[in-house]
């Protein structure tokens, strides 16, 4: 072993010194990676984490405006806007990972209402009851949405940014071409199927009807498709009286059978489109506006993307008609809908909850809420805005989708819902891709449901 010339010129002690220095430097680098406790957070910077996609930038506009207003109103606390550019599923993943470490946890979170109970259970959120108690504008929020932000412990964690309903969008021009009435309202599932079949025969190049059925579309598949069907049957997912989940219901199989029917008969998009990860954006920004899809079940926010922005479609009001989703056989009240909505919530790791709430109050004030409701085409949850002329007249779809509130349902608000929803998505994709019959997929769902909540938390339909 001959030392290299350069090293041989260094005396042993210097060599040891060199080695020691490198070791120290490495140790320093290691400890820098793990981060001194909470050094990256301080009480004078608030991190606001929210979702942003090509089709959804309205929230960013409102938060940017609120940031300017809030920073102008005082000089100590700065707002750091941190968008997560991802579709819904990946947004939840990224958010959960950020929440996992005190160093990265947000102070203020754009939080889907159905995630609140889960995240409260994980200790990611901080209750805000003490702050709303002295917030005058809290009284403007409708009582029905005040509960949306509550955790299992009945404390308030999130404030609603607006709610939504779901119904059928249809293309009036394509209906006219197929000899269908311009004013259309199905009263049973069969009505929808008959109309879709008529469209298929008359317009073979057009996809008659879209209902999401892919795992990739995540919660949208559960809510915009499966639950819009299931809540129109005599069955439900969760018995709110006994607080138990329902297994083996006929409604569950019927909902899957309906999805299977539209996909098997070619009334729905081909699987290459249906299972595409971008299906949601494609329907909203491409297939529906271009007249390639005649009907689809989707959310009331859809026109928000057509009013302005990258995917503006100024003529949408001439083409698009709306219909309520009928119950399976026309059972009373005749129609059904699902409502969700997002909230602003406070992260449990925040060092300055008062400032965090102050910023939330600015983002949710009358001006900003009006801007958000109208630009994002949401149903107002503040009573002072719901009656404003400016709100009511800004978008022709508001009246229709607000009228669905009387038929609407909410998802079971339990910490397990998001995982159970995942099992629903598996069932839907399995059925439409031919991997399982509705009975088999329902049985698989029952099995994974029991696996998630346990034997004592389920009941047979």
């Amino acid at each position, binding site marked *: 072993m001959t030392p290299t010339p350069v090293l041989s010129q260094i005396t042993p002690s210097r060599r*040891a010194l060199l080695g020691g220095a490198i070791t120290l430097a*490495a140790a320093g680098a290691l400890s820098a990676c793990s981060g001194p406790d909470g050094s990256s957070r301080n009480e004078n910077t608030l991190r606001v984490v929210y979702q942003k996609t090509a089709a959804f930038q309205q929230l960013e506009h409102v938060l940017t405006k609120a940031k300017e207003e809030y920073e102008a109103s005082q000089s100590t606390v700065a707002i750091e806007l941190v968008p997560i550019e991802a579709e819904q*599923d990946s947004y939840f*993943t990224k958010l959960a990972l950020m929440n996992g470490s005190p160093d990265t946890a947000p102070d203020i979170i754009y939080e889907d209402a159905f*995630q609140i109970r889960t995240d409260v259970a*994980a200790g990611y959120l901080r209750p805000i009851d003490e702050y709303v108690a002295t917030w005058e504008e809290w009284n403007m929020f409708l009582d029905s949405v005040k509960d949306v932000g509550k955790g299992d412990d009945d404390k308030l964690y999130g404030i609603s940014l607006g709610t939504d309903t779901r119904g059928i969008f249809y293309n009036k021009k394509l209906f006219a071409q197929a000899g269908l009435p311009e004013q259309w309202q199905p009263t049973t599932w069969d009505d929808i199927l008959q109309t879709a079949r008529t469209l298929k025969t008359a317009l073979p190049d057009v996809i008659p009807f879209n209902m999401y059925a892919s795992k990739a579309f*995540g919660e949208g598949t559960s809510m915009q498709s499966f639950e819009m069907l299931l809540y129109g049957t005599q069955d439900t997912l969760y018995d709110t009286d006994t607080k138990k989940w329902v297994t083996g219901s006929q409604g569950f199989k019927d909902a899957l059978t309906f999805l299977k029917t539209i996909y098997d008969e070619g009334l729905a998009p081909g699987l290459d489109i249906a299972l595409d990860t971008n299906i949601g954006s494609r329907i909203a920004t491409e297939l529906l506006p271009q007249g390639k899809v005649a009907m689809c079940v989707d959310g009331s926010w859809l026109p928000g993307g057509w009013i302005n922005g990258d995917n503006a479609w100024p003529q949408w009001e001439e083409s698009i008609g709306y219909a309520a989703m009928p119950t399976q056989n026309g059972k009373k009240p005749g129609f059904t809908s699902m409502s969700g909505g997002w909230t602003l919530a406070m992260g449990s790791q925040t060092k300055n909850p008062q400032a965090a709430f102050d910023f939330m109050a600015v983002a949710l004030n009358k001006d900003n809420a009006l801007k958000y409701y109208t630009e994002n085409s949401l149903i107002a949850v503040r009573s002072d805005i719901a009656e404003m002329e400016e709100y009511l007249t800004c978008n022709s779809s508001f009246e229709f989708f607000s009228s669905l509130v009387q038929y609407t349902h909410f998802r079971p608000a339990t910490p*397990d819902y998001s995982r159970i929803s995942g099992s629903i998505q598996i069932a839907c994709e*399995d059925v439409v891709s031919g*991997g399982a019959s509705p009975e088999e997929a329902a049985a698989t769902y029952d099995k994974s449901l029991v696996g998630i909540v346990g034997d004592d938390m389920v009941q047979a339909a």
Partner: protein
Amino acid sequence: MHQSPACGVPTAGGASRRRHTGRALRRELPLLPAVLMLLAFMAGPIAYAFYGAFTNRTMSGYKAVNPDFIGVDNYVSLFSDPDFYTSVLLTLAFLLGSAIIGQNVLGMLVAVLMRHTPRSVSSAVGACIVGAWVMPEIVAAFACYAFFHTEGTLNTVLDAIGLDGPAWLVTFPMLSVILANIWRGTAFSMMNYNAALAEIPPEIKESAQIDGAGALQSFFRISLPIIRRTIATNLMLTTLQTLGVFTLIFVMTGGGPGTRSSILPVLAYQEAFKFSQIGYGSAIATVTLVIGAVFSLVYTRVLRPEVE
């Protein structure tokens, strides 16, 4: 067995050995940071994944903060889940089709052909093949997605010659991702084999030629045995690389339709991050690790007689 001289003279030998050990230690000291780094960033996460697989940790909800130690429950439910066995079969098909057969055979073929073509042709071909390999995985994945998509390049070309292509990603998900991985990974094998073939002394081949061996005979009887060690190493490397492929499949098919292209890494991701079961996902990742280890063991066994 005779004793070594050093043992016969303990005092002197011991002192020199101590000096020797001391010097060796000092010499190896600069390695310490690297070893620490490896422990922290390689062994650490692996150990943590092993541990995580024994808990019911989730991404959110009660078990995110207070996961329970549940022993082998994750493995029990994993081994009783038919989806898992489907996934293992798909993983093996993916390994066999795209790495062991696809990349290796095609890489060898291209390497051999390139040695027999004019330099200009071989460098042009080489550049094209290496291009796929140089691309970041995510870019390659989107390129393949665009190629195999129903309205993508492949079907447009087929359409031009009057053929009606299927929806590749839906009808043949595994074939699509296998072809994509062959396209992406062949360059690596090609370069390895090219280098190995170039090292074969030309005299050996010449003498074989003089003895009357044809091109095929000289390839199978002379070239292949000589580069056997490269083949074994290359097999191991491509297998391990392919076992880690995630982005390609996730972008192209998302593991679907249903679970028809969910190889183990995709299944692990889905369970851990989509269905929030970190513990269960870790168990799947651990099984993937074991499969990789088994393959490595087999290859090193194959390799060993050549080394000795």
